[in-house]
């Protein structure tokens, strides 16, 4: 039942807009509630911007998933930028190295059901989030 995953390159502001639009389209297709669509698109916007700004660009892959009980969406944000040395610190509300609000990572984690981060200094960062239908 799973459709092909869809992949976008993130190399500009415009690509971040495209990520939001793709995530919205898939969120509607799997029938997430309006509030959950809004949460997921917002989280995706934060993470795609981080991929662009801190990761130096990368890719976003959007996948429909099904665990046998529920349908959902999984999104992977991958870059081969500088990586994050201290993940716990980066996930603290208000922590920023870029003059932002420091809410993107920590806020995105609150907005999704599952949040996995795989990062290593010098290798890059890969963040995968999942939102399930209720």
């Amino acid at each position, binding site marked *: 039942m799973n459709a092909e995953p869809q992949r976008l390159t993130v190399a500009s502001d415009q690509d*971040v807009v495209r990520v939001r639009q793709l995530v919205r389209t898939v969120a509607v297709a799997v029938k997430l509630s309006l509030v959950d669509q809004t*949460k997921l*698109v917002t989280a995706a*916007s934060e993470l795609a911007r981080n991929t662009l700004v801190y990761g130096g660009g990368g890719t976003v892959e959007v996948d429909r998933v099904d665990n046998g009980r529920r349908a959902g969406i999984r999104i992977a944000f991958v870059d081969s930028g500088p990586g994050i040395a201290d993940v716990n610190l980066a996930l603290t509300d208000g922590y920023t190295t870029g003059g932002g*609000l420091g809410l993107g990572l920590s*806020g995105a984690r609150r907005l999704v059901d599952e949040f996995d981060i795989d990062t290593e200094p010098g290798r890059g960062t890969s963040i995968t989030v999942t939102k399930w239908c209720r």
Partner: protein
Amino acid sequence: MERVPVLKIGDMLLVSIQVDMEDQTALNLQEDLADKIVATGCRGVIIDISALDIVDSFVGRMLATIAGISKVLDAETVVVGMRPAVAITLVELGLSLPGIRTALNVELGMALLARARFEAEGGGDAGEDDETVAAAS
């Protein structure tokens, strides 16, 4: 680069954001508004976000910055039309937009600005307040 139009309506500026803005578009809007506040001497700014289906930290920060800039330029900003799902998401994201005045729609936003102006100009001590009292008694 797309630009969000800034309209002058009476002595207010109205910005109705109709597109999913790129980050640069949001930054341009900040500058355009500052220029227009100075050029027109307007004392109130209404930002209508009813067409936005999300507000992330970048747009949230833009709204806060616009409110701050306009304050310094002696104008008041009201953000109107936030969708309920957007409000729920913003709070969970951790952005409570302190210092930003909000109203449910453009009309209520205009009323809020008019009231804020009246109070700022020391309205109440003079005639109008007495009239209210007189009318009530």
